[in-house]
Every structure is written in C-alpha cells, then in structure tokens.
C-alpha cells in the first residue's frame, strides 16, 4: 500500500493530537453535566465558558453571541429557519445564491414549501455573485441574505464585507455559511457586518459533531431544540463538552497559525495549479485565481469522468473528491459547477484537492505524476476523446 496522501481537507481534517489531548479529560475525568450545581460539574461549565470566549475572539464576537450546535449543517438550518420563524411578519423573502451548500439550499427549499419566497442569485464563471444584482434583489419583504463566505467545491471567496454593508444599509439580516472559511481566512463579524455565521469544528482539525452559530445580539431568535435551558434556552441538550473544548482548541490554534498557514497553503496551492495547468492538457481551473481559499484546488478534466479518477487515485493512496454525478448518487453533476457555466459533460470530470498545512510539495509532485498517468489512461478509454481527436484535422492535438 502506498503512503496515504490526504487531499480532502474540505471534507474533513485530521484531529490534531494536541487538540485530542485537551479534549481527553472531559470524557472520563471531568464528566460532570455542566448544568449541575456541584463543584465537580462546574469544571465542565468553566471549560464551556472558556471555549465560548476563545471562539468569539476568533471572529471578533462577544462570547454570549456564540451558540454551540451539532455542526455546520445544523447551524445553517437553525439560522435560516429561526430567522424565517421570528421575522415572517416583516416579510417572507430570503436571498441566497445558487452555489450554497445543500445545508442552505435544501433549508431554503423547505422554507419555500412553507410559503417563503427565495431568490437564488446566479454567479459568474469564477463563482462570484454580482453585488448590483444583490442590491436589486432586496425588497420590502426581504428578511435575510444568506451567502457563503467561501465555496466548498471551487474555493471562491465572496466579497463578504461588501455584502454585509449592503445588507446592513438595507436593514436586512446577513447570514454567512463560513464552514469552509472559518479558521482558514480572516473573518470579523464587526468589520464584515455579519449578523449570523455558521461554522464547524472538524474542518479546522477539531472534532466532528460540533459546530457553532454566531447570532448578533439583538436578533430575535426562536428556540431550535426545545428542552433544557442550555445555550440561553435556544438550543436544548446536554453540552458536548469534549467537542466544545476540542473545537475551541482548534479555533485558538487556527487563529494563532492563520498567517503562516495561509502563506504555506497558498504557495502549495499555486504550485499544484501551475503544474496541472502546464502539464495536463484540457484541464480547466474552477473558481477564481485571486479570491480563492488557500487550500482549494479544483479542476475539470475534459473527456473523463470524476469517479473513475477518484478510484484510480485511491488505488495510489491519494484521497480526493469530485463533483461528478456518480459520487453523489444522482445523475446531475455538482450544482456549483453547473452554476459557473460548466457544461454537464465537463462538470462530470471534476476533481477537488484540498490541502492542509501538513501536505508537502513532494506529495503534490506524486499527485501530479499519478494524475497525468490516470488521465491519459482514462482518455484512452473515452469515446468522447476519440470523437474529439477525430475532429482535430491534421492531427494537431497536443496529446
């Protein structure tokens, strides 16, 4: 078996051992329920209070504005459903984009069934929404704008501060799904005028099953899970203390290492993009070159299909992902790739590689060499490529 090369950090990340170490005491040593009165349990409560402060500090929020959840999807669901519930008397219109994560899109579809009207803003070829179009879409009855900070598939970073300013000026709440952005790029809820922000622990080398929702003070919000008084009575259920401690430790670490990590990952990212563009023909970069998550590389390779590529990479110990239909169980390729204008047959040939700071240049060299072989092999089997070569008169194909 080849040495594992993990390039799917947008799916999930390795829990760092030092973070696990911080979590460990809260499993079987300080296992008290933080809601209990005795001193023993107060140890757990203290850990949660501290975690809330640490997470708030990363985004420039107040600790009481941070609500712990079971993860990014829950945060997205809660944000939109709660705004819809609390403000439907003001209006039933929500603006989002076509390239949001399904946690946002499917929640919006649910709200449509409940009588809400949703505007799905298109994006341009690089994946950006148009700010003028956003402005024009805002109506009297618009209650919320939900635009992701950075896209999970193509890495495009939206002009969050500009969106926040527009929303604030119009008196509309701004929610951002920052699951891919939190801990990866600087985020400030004050500077960017963000009213609600969703994030998750396991995308930043923290544990799975824990996330948070930032809710700006003053926003009416209805309880999401009914039960105990946890999370200011808004989200009942005994706290996942080790998870919370782990996410906070990961957030703290992410904050401390942010600058160096961005530099390192950006240079690895650009190295890989450059090599692929130079050495693999008929490869199209998805997303923006300048406003892109430091860890995201996304390409479409023409004439081949993504799942085949993934299985062959897996055979070489390389973990990657694709927006091809076959990886989703549906016939349609990724809604994100279609939204940026990739035709179906090209969108099927997508490959996403997402870095962590632990990846090395040597690993990326292995990936490029393997990828070249795999793509050549799959193109050799592809009737689309055969047809394409036949259209190239005089055999001027550069393959």
């Amino acid at each position, binding site marked *: 078996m080849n040495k594992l090369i993990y390039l799917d950090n947008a799916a999930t990340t390795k829990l760092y051992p030092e973070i696990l170490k911080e979590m460990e005491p809260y499993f079987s040593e300080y296992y008290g329920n933080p809601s209990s009165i005795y001193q023993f349990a107060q140890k757990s409560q203290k850990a949660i209070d501290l975690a809330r402060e640490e997470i708030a500090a990363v985004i420039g929020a107040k600790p009481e504005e941070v609500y712990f959840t079971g993860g990014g999807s829950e945060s997205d669901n809660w944000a939109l459903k709660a705004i819809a519930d609390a403000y439907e008397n003001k209006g039933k219109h929500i603006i989002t984009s076509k390239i949001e994560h399904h946690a946002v899109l499917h929640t919006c579809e649910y709200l449509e069934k409940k009588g809400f009207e949703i505007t799905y803003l298109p994006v341009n070829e690089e994946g950006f929404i148009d700010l003028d179009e956003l402005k024009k879409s805002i109506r009297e009855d618009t209650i919320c704008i939900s635009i992701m900070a950075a896209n999970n598939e193509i890495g495009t970073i939206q002009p969050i501060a500009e969106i926040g300013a527009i929303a604030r000026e119009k008196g509309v709440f701004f929610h951002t799904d920052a699951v891919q952005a939190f801990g990866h790029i600087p985020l400030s809820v004050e500077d960017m005028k963000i009213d609600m922000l969703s994030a998750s622990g396991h995308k930043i080398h923290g544990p799975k099953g824990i996330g948070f929702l930032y809710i700006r003070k003053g926003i009416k919000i209805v309880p999401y899970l009914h039960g105990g008084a946890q999370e200011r009575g808004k989200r009942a259920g005994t706290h996942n203390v080790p998870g919370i401690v782990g996410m906070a430790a990961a957030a703290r670490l992410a904050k401390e290492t942010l600058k160096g990590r961005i530099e390192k990952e950006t240079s690895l990212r650009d190295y890989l993009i450059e090599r692929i563009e130079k050495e693999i023909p008929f490869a199209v970069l998805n997303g923006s070159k300048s406003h892109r998550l430091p860890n995201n590389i996304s390409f479409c390779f023409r004439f081949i*299909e993504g799942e*085949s590529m993934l299985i062959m990479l897996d055979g070489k110990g390389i973990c990657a992902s694709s927006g091809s239909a*076959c990886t989703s169980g549906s016939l349609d390729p990724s809604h994100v790739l279609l939204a940026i204008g990739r035709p*179906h*047959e090209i969108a099927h040939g997508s490959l996403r590689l997402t870095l962590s700071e632990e990846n090395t240049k040597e690993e990326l060299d292995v990936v490029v060499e393997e990828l070249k072989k795999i793509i050549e092999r799959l193109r050799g*089997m*592809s009737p*689309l490529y055969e047809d394409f070569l036949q259209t190239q008169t005089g055999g001027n194909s550069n393959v």
Partner: protein
Amino acid sequence: MYSEKVMDHFENPRNVGEIQNASGVGTVGNAKCGDIMRMYFQIDENKIIQDAKFKTFGCGAAIATSSMATELVKGKSVEEALQVTNRAVMEALDGLPPVKVHCSLLAEEAIHAALWDYAQKENLHIEGLQKPVEDIEELHR
C-alpha cells in the same frame, strides 16, 4: 462499495480499444448523465462475434460493465449475444451497488446497439432485436 470483480474489471479492463472496419459499432448513453459506452464487434460469416472492444466515458461501474459485457459476448453468436442481459452482466460482476444498476442497463443497450448496426449493414433481421435507444435513462425510468 464495489465488489472485487468490479474493481478487477475497472482496474484491468478487458477489450479496451477500437476495431477498424468493425462489423457493428454501437454508442449509447449521453455525456449529460455522465456515461457513454461505445462497443465494436467483429462478426464472422457464421454470425459469431470473433472480437469485441469498447470505449467508455463513465464511472468505475460503467467501465467494469463494459469490460464484462464484451467478455461475455465474445465467441457467441449474435442470437446468443442478445441474451446477455444487464442481469447477466451484473451477476458476472458479483453485483453492483443499487445506484449503479443503470450502468449494466447501458452495457446491455450497447450490445444491442452494436448488433443493430451490424444488422443494418448486413441487411439482416435478428429475431428479438429492437432499435436501441440512445438515452437509456428514458427507457428504464
């Protein structure tokens, strides 16, 4: 997710390629859905499939079913080849995940398409052979 047989036929696909001046060529599927299969049959005067090759754009299951389907039809008469159903291809591969069953349907249709092309060229009637559809998803929806 895939059986060992599927993985074997995906990693070491049999009969990849083209046949120049083939007796019959059939292409099914569409790029929109992410699978296209093209099969080439060399058929002798006794209506025996002497050689079969394929080219496929698609997922692991699409490549593996193409490989297995061409293996199954080789050496068979055109009438026998018509009996190579999607179920036969699946069974020979020790099964497919439910979401990949359509790949085996595509393989069956590709066999029919290549035979149809052969019958057209030779002006033959093959009992039980119907004009293939290009969009397999429409047929089996």
